């Protein structure tokens, strides 16, 4: 496959994932009873890191298919791992996120987690990049 096309597609996916991570953080911030500031920090840190990686990918000049895959895998792990962090920490009772809000945040986190896993496997298949970078 054309590395430029792969680059564009992966960059788009990652920009979207970064946006969704920001949304999850904001949703947790809005629905938490206490320690709300933690989620603002988490939203900014996670999304910025994923966006930085997508920027790195889009700025990769004359990269081979494999190199595009390597950078995409690095960002893919970031987004998958941060989703896992959200999914496992948001239900903590100290934050007081309950009911529909909790279900929504968890649903987006788990969807991002599964989407991340799928993205990684797909990048591996399309570019031959190793998952253990």
């Amino acid at each position, binding site marked *: 496959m054309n590395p430029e096309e792969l680059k564009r597609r992966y960059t788009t996916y990652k920009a979207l994932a970064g946006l969704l991570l920001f949304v999850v953080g904001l949703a947790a911030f809005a629905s938490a009873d206490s*320690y709300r500031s*933690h989620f603002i920090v*988490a939203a900014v*840190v*996670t999304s910025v*890191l994923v966006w930085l990686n997508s920027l790195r990918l889009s700025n990769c000049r004359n990269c081979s298919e494999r190199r595009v895959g*390597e950078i995409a895998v*690095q960002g893919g*792990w*970031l987004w*998958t*791992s*941060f989703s*896992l*962090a959200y999914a*496992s*920490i948001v*239900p*903590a*009772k*100290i934050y007081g996120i309950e009911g529909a809000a909790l279900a929504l945040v968890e649903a987006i986190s788990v969807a991002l987690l599964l989407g991340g896993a799928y993205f990684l496997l797909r990048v591996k298949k399309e570019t031959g990049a190793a*998952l*253990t*970078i």
Partner: protein
Amino acid sequence: MGEDEKGAPRNGQEVKDYYGDYATLRVPEHEKRTFLNQLMVFLGVLAVWAAVFGGASMANYLDARGILIASILGSIALGVIAFLTGLIGSYNGVSTYVILRHSMGRFGSIAAGIVISGISAALWFAFETWLFGVILNGVFPESFLARVEVAAAWGGILMMTTALIGYRGLAALSYLIVPAWFLIIPLALAASISLKGGWDRLFAATPPEPAGLAAGITFVIGLYIVGATIAPDITRFSRRPIDGPLAWFVHVVFFMPIILIAGGWLQLLAPGSNLAAEMTAMGMGLAVLVTGILGQWSTNDNNLYSASLAWVNAVPKVKRWVWVAVLGVAGTIVAVAIALGYGISLEALFAFGTLLGTFIPPIAGVMIADYYIVQPLLLGRRDPRTRYSFGPGTVYGAIRWPGILGWAVGSALAYWLPQQYAQIPGAVVGLFTGLILHTLLMALSVKARIPYDVGKWVETETGW
């Protein structure tokens, strides 16, 4: 470059990778990795609960300020040491034990390999298995299967089993855990400090058995000195010589203090507890299980792998899987014994870290002295890329006595001096003694024309 692509050592002969993972050969060019790749590998090693518990054990001896300073200074010292050792690996593309052949001789490198990886990594397996029990006990305190000694027993056997069947997929777990780890732990720490009385109470808290800052620094260095000494094992895969050493420096200076301080400060605020139990109490049991079980499992599996590889390199006639089984069973027994003796008390971990900080740093000192001082200034080998030669037919000393003596005397002083003067950090003493003694003895030997090698060893086709 052509030789590298074939996976050949420096003298140009193509060689089969007999032991796997280029354990005794130069890493070929196509296997080399970037700075970021290596940073992730190093962070994967660091993101384990053992590091948090390591920080927690400092709270028995240091106050909040002491934990902060010891963590930062100890981490910077580790960063500098590993940058220097790591650079040797990235210039030469060979593992620690192969590098040590030049400074300690062939038998010295085998002995150092056994001490660094064969014994230390096996003991890390035991300690991390015990900590696996401590974590599970914190999440399920009422369950029989989560009693520390019971969980350590079945956890150790399970981890050994995955190491035995060589399920490499476990390595991917590290990549899943690392970023999550550095999001979850700071969040949990911030919430815990707030719940336990805030920053004022934290900085007013006193440790039960106050000790000097030097002991804390020695402990921090000891906690990861094995990693710093064997940094060439990973940095040998560097694309550019600076990549791996810089990745090591960044991960230890910027990330290790976060983990140590998280464990230490919380322990100081809630003595007798630990971050895993506190997180469970705050309703973060799922996060503890995710980071604890997956992270611990993937790292500990690797400890056993490294230990078995060191023993295979020392006694190649015994298969690697036999070593995994033997070390796994022995490590599990030790883990259960620690659990029965110490329960969830972290004193055992402090003693272990201090012990490692005594016997390992002199090896790093000898390695650094040989590459950066002895070879260029005494033996006239200026070019860092050709300073050492490896490959079939290369002649090494069987024993290079200045290196061995530097290690032995450095270890003895690192053990003895802190017992007499508590303010002296043993790890630093050991490192500098090894470095200075090796340099002086080699200088004496060269100037007085006294042979510095006893016997000789010619490298075979397998790199042995």
